[in-house]
């Protein structure tokens, strides 16, 4: 094993070490400060935590690939909301009235297609115009959110299908449906990024786009595929979440893009691209959810939670920079 791989292992392990620290801290602190009698590391509590990580988690996993590419997608929150509306609203459309519960797969498909199409629009613009993904998806974020409001104004879009709710609330081998989707997505994307040509190319493009082009990699189509993928995942996230809740507010999903990016960055993926891992992002997602729940457990309110997460994010990145800089040349310009 070379020094490099060892260093990589240490880096990928860091987020899990952080999770362990969190668990210990909140368990101990919980004994003194918690209002509830329940221990923090309660099995059901942890299962719930995984389930609650799923919506942002699924998006963050996709965001990892986008960021390894050296791009970013700010429109995922709006895509999430629009897909959710398509999901719930389509179940009430008269043309599907005769389908009974068969409307569920149809609506799912429609919602997922919505995500893929919105992602494809982003990807095509990035590919064909060469405009930075940040700008393109910033525009898309506003535009797609506009569509959300055009659909139903300020009104929530609601529809409850009890079969669907049962499915979403089901537990298989103890894990909730949403958790299975999160873990399944993580497994598939991990395979894609570590074992396939597409994953290899994603790292190469993010690390040195020019060299990737010179090696005959078609960068444009590659980007398009990844934006379609993250659109799909944003929609999948919506499908999983709203199958249970049954009601979308037009503001739903706002700031999801930032939470997803936070999780990805906490997991060690670089904003500049070329480096990152799916498994570490999963760690980042869980770490954030642990913080939220843990701080809640010891009696902190939401505002405090956000403040702490913000501080920890900056602290972690600062630490990462310090560790990485060792032995390398410091930038002084």
């Amino acid at each position, binding site marked *: *094993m*070379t020094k*490099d*791989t060892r260093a990589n292992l240490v880096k990928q392990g860091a987020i899990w070490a952080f999770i362990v620290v969190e668990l210990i801290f909140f368990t101990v602190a919980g004994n003194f400060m918690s209002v509830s009698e329940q221990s923090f590391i309660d099995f059901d509590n942890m299962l719930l935590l995984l389930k609650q990580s799923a919506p942002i988690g699924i998006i963050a996993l996709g965001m990892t690939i986008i960021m390894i590419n050296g791009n970013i997608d700010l429109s995922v929150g709006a895509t999430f909301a629009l897909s959710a509306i398509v999901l719930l609203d389509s179940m009430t459309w008269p043309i599907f009235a005769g389908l009974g519960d068969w409307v569920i797969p149809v609506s799912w498909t429609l919602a997922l297609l919505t995500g893929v199409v919105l992602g494809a629009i982003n990807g095509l613009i990035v590919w064909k115009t060469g405009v930075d993904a940040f700008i393109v998806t910033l525009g898309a974020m506003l535009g797609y959110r506009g569509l959300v409001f055009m659909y139903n104004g300020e009104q929530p879009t609601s529809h409850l299908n009890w079969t669907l709710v049962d499915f979403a609330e089901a537990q298989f081998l103890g894990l909730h449906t949403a958790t299975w989707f999160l873990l399944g997505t993580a497994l598939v994307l991990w*395979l894609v990024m570590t*074992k*396939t*040509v597409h994953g*290899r*190319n994603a*790292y*190469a493009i993010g*690390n*040195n786009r*020019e*060299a*990737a*082009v*010179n*090696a*005959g*990699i*078609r960068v444009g189509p590659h980007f398009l595929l990844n934006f379609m993928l993250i659109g799909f995942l944003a929609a999948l996230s919506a499908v999983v979440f709203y199958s249970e809740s049954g009601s979308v507010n037009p503001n739903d999903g706002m700031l999801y893009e930032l939470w997803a990016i936070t999780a990805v960055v906490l997991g060690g993926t670089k904003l500049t691209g*070329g*480096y990152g891992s799916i498994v570490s992002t999963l760690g980042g997602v869980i770490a954030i959810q642990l913080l939220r729940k843990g701080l809640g457990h010891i009696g902190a309110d939401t505002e405090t939670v956000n403040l702490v997460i913000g501080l920890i994010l900056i602290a972690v990145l600062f630490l990462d920079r310090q560790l990485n800089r060792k*032995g390398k*040349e410091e930038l*002084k*310009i």
Partner: protein
Amino acid sequence: MTDEKPALRLENIVKTFPGVRALDDVSFAVMPGEVHALMGENGAGKSTLMKVLGGILQPNEGRIFIEEESTIMTTPLDAKAKGVVFIHQELSLADELSVAENIFLGELPRKSFGRVDWGKLYEQTDAILKTLNVGFNARTRVGDLSIANQQMVEIARALTVDPRAVIFDEPTASLTDAEKVVLFDVIADLKSRGVGIVYISHRMEEIFKITDRISVLRDGQYRGTLETAKTDEDEVTQLMIGRSLDLSRNEEHREHGEVALEVRGLSCGDLYRDVSFKVHRGEVVGFYGLVGAGRTEIAETIFGLRDPSEGQILLDGQELRIHSPVDAIRHGISLVPEDRKGQGLVLGMNCRDNMTLPQVDDLTAGPFVSDGAEIAIFDQYRDKLDIRTPGWRQTVGNLSGGNQQKIVIGKWLSMHPNVLIVDEPTRGIDVGSKSEIHNLIRDLAGQGYAVIVISSEMPEVLHVSDRIVAMYHGRIMREFSAEEVTEDSLIQAISGIESEKVA
């Protein structure tokens, strides 16, 4: 001069990067009122030395003295405050700001409440510009100036402090002859004021015209200092290149195979015009010319990175339509680019992944990449090209230049290309690896590959080529066979002198 204290002195400087000893115990001194040339091939350590001097890099060992006082340069600003100023090859000016603002950037004179004292700023600037005798003033927008005048702004910036030493890094690279004269006057003026001048350049005529002494670096080591008046180009070259590098003329006579690549009447805008040539299998064709003569652009066109405005590219007699590297690679045309780190390698990736990058599509088992197939290819070409690395997991960024270049070459060889284009094959590579790469290029031709080598180093072109194409300003001036070429005729051809043009 010998009794004086050196304006600037470096003692036993060592600077290492992962895998490379960029500076190995280098000592160097410049006296006040002296123009001291620093010479060495690309990769000899000149720029690293200058970065150490300018506070951009910190040396691992060694000391820096200014007028015999030991100092540490922490940042470029710190170096400037201590009287060591750089005139960089690449100008670092803000186009949209005025000359005065650029000169005093970061140090604008202030009035109360942090307001800029414009009156004082322009007054001080004009005072400096006056000593330089230039035809623009403090309020001129820098973006409106010529390159030469922008360089004057850089020099003026140096004069805002009372400099002990001024370092010029390839200052004449983009200047016309008339502009050079002005620059040399300014240098003479600085010299007469007792400033020590370090002059980095590749151009021998300039060096012999304006410098007092010449110090030479090779492979990160100090190789000696010569008095300009008492030496000649040969001696300097010998110090720079060393005897270990075999750059004898290529005298092999080999039978070449069929024409592999043929280019007919290729043009690309203003970059090059009406270029035609053939490359046979088993032949190395060298492209020689000055930087900007259009050689790299031709290579990029053949590789699909540029679309030609006219002309044809034929492979084995078949016309090709190449619009992207994907097309070129499909036809077995491969390019080892000029900028290895920027264009050739994914530095953050490991050796194996870099080597298999263009063909990883074909190395799959089901949906997944086959580790075994990849490692087999890597091992084969590691042995074949003698790539020294602890293993395929090694990050390419940590290899030495020579090994990096071999990875890029191996990347294409493992795909058995029809044509291999190598742009500046040994730029930034140490002498030992240089001859290895040269031998490798000869071997490849021996195995029947059609090879194009683009190089700015004449000995290299003469050493590896069977045929040499001389280019000047986007045109092919002349083609030489290895037997007929002489250095004089080659230099004339790349300088645009049309002597006895052979059909």
